[in-house]
């Protein structure tokens, strides 16, 4: 038995546990909504977490391609970055994948059937995922402050453009219209 095969076979169980693990980081009344409400629009948080986790897991098993992993991880972390979590809490769900897989291995088959080198490789992949999550979290927070700053500038941008109407002449070049209307 090799680990990759095991992880593919147990995909649904592991994803379910992982999802519950993320969701339980919220208050009980909240986690109930996140779990039960399947409507994408009435429950955007739960929806993003579930779909994000599924995609991350599948990508994780295949290639660990950062380019592909990023948007999926982003969906989850973008939300957690503005919720009541400290940075460590916001991304700690990545590490819980290790424990979940370890538990599953113990339950399903004897751990020693899997070469320890494979387990070590898996765990270091999780670590890489966590580092990626750390990058994304930081970007989200930076974006948040950018948004704040830009809004502040745009609020009176036109006025400042008329320069002599205000005592202080701004030194910065606002990027308002660029942000405001980005091309896809």
């Amino acid at each position, binding site marked *: 038995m090799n680990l990759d095969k095991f992880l593919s076979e147990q995909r649904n169980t592991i994803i379910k546990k992982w999802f519950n693990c993320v969701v339980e980081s919220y208050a009980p009344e909240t986690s109930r909504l996140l779990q039960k409400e399947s409507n994408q629009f009435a429950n955007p948080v739960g929806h993003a977490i579930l779909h994000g986790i599924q995609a991350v897991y599948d990508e994780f098993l295949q290639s660990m391609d950062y380019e592909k992993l990023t948007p999926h991880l982003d969906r989850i972390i973008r939300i957690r970055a503005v919720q009541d979590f400290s940075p460590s809490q916001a991304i700690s769900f990545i590490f819980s994948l290790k424990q979940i897989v370890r538990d599953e291995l113990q339950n399903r088959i004897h751990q020693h059937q899997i070469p320890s080198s494979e387990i070590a490789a898996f765990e270091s992949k999780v670590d890489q995922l966590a580092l990626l999550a750390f990058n994304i979290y930081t970007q989200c927070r930076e974006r948040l402050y950018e948004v704040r700053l830009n809004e502040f500038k745009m609020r009176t941008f036109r006025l400042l453009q008329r320069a002599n109407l205000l005592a202080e002449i701004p030194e910065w070049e606002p990027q308002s219209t660029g942000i405001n*209307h*980005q091309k896809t």
Partner: protein
Amino acid sequence: MATVPKPNELVIDHKPPQTGWMDTPVVFRPGTWCYGAKTKNLKALDLPNPREWSPGDEDWKLPENWKEIILEGIRERLEKYRSFKIFMDICVRCGACADKCHFWIGTGDPKNMPVLRAELLRSVYRNDFTTAGKLLGKMAGARELTMDVFKEWFYYFFQCTECRRCSLFCPYGIDTAEITLMARELLNLVGCNIDWIAGPAANCFNNGNHLGIQPHAFKDMIEFFVDEIEAVNGVRVEPTFNRKGAEVLFITPSGDVFADPGTYTLMGYLMLFHEIGLDYTWSTYASEGGNFGFFTSHEMMKRLNAKMYAEAKRLGVKWILGGECGHMWRVINQYMDTMNGPADFLEVPVSPITGTRFDNARATKMTHIVEFTADLIKHGKLKLDPSRNDHHRVTYHDSCNTARGMGLMEEPRYVLKNVCNNFFEMPAGTTREQTFCCGSGSGLNTDEFMEIRMRGGLPRANAVQYVHDKHDVNMMACICAIDRAVLTASMNYWVPGVGITGVHELVGNALVMEGETERTTDLRGEPLAGMEESEDEDL
């Protein structure tokens, strides 16, 4: 150096202690509350207890008898508002509203369930105003008004955007917006407003608009846009100011004059009025359509709103035309005539171009610009080239107040479908009367509150994401100045690649004007579809 985290900040407690909501005080974490009202702003509005304070402080410097003041305030409001009395009494806590609030969906904080938000106030009501509460106390859902409870009010009633989505689903029509209005009035009795509301209200009161722009600057700004329009299509529009004898007085939120992207909407107004030859005037005195008094108290709402009729009377206009704004229109539709009417010195609005009599505004004598434009289009009075908006793939966000406090839903869609070729609705359940709030309404659109605003904006953003993915939507139209400002921020965070526009910006783009030169760019200076060579220059 970063602060050293406490152990419990590092470890996720999977089973948080289950304390009842009555015994769980609020933690004031930065990013989750707005700055307190400054002394000068409270003084400018003659509001009580002006002082320097911060909601993050332990001591809020309330007057000694604050509790008496608040309880007396509740009693007075119970006598004055049947809505308040009924809504305090008849909730059965059926939970239908619980998952309808954008803040609850985005934060997961149980006290953001509309029912619990109201219970924060109801519990005190029961304790001091009902027999059951006095006798049975906590068993009857009553609790004493303490400083913790009071702070909790501040936190959660300035975390409600008065969007009324919950009231739509309530079997008794209990309207949290109404309860929040009362709670904010009570908080204001002891000087606990937020500065982002008190500041604009003070400016509006003294200078005519939220930003405190002086008359000459206001005129100068609008003339600046005259130049901008000329640069786009060679037509020079000629607005007038404070002109007596004009037929129509036009009032729009000042955000349209100073803040992008509202400014482009303002250009749209100017172009439209010029093209149809409307005899209208701007006012520097009534230069604010928005009303941050609405977010303070009924009295403050009336004080700020009074300028509209006063100015219409002074200038001797026949009727008033109102620009694109959300809460401004709830005030006009549901409060203005009662507060500052009767407007018997005005005439029932009649479109001078089509002859249509706006019967639905026969008492207030104030018509919404989208109604006005829809009527123009219906009668074929505008030459429109919707292909000039072909670089936009547009969806429409109903503003809470025009949707649930007025019912203006078809008119903007009719206009949009006539001025652009690519229009896509967001999923049902997220638009029209069930529209999701931008997340920053009712005076909460301040930058220090960004985290909560982003959480509250998630349900709306999520629906936008859907049409963005499915139909490539890159522009969301709305008819609210606060929306234009804050959805820009929300989209920047949640759905980069979607811009925000007013409906009349798109009208301005599509409007074929007499004597105009060939347009290569839209009002933002961005190339029209098929003319992308000069891509780089934005402004």
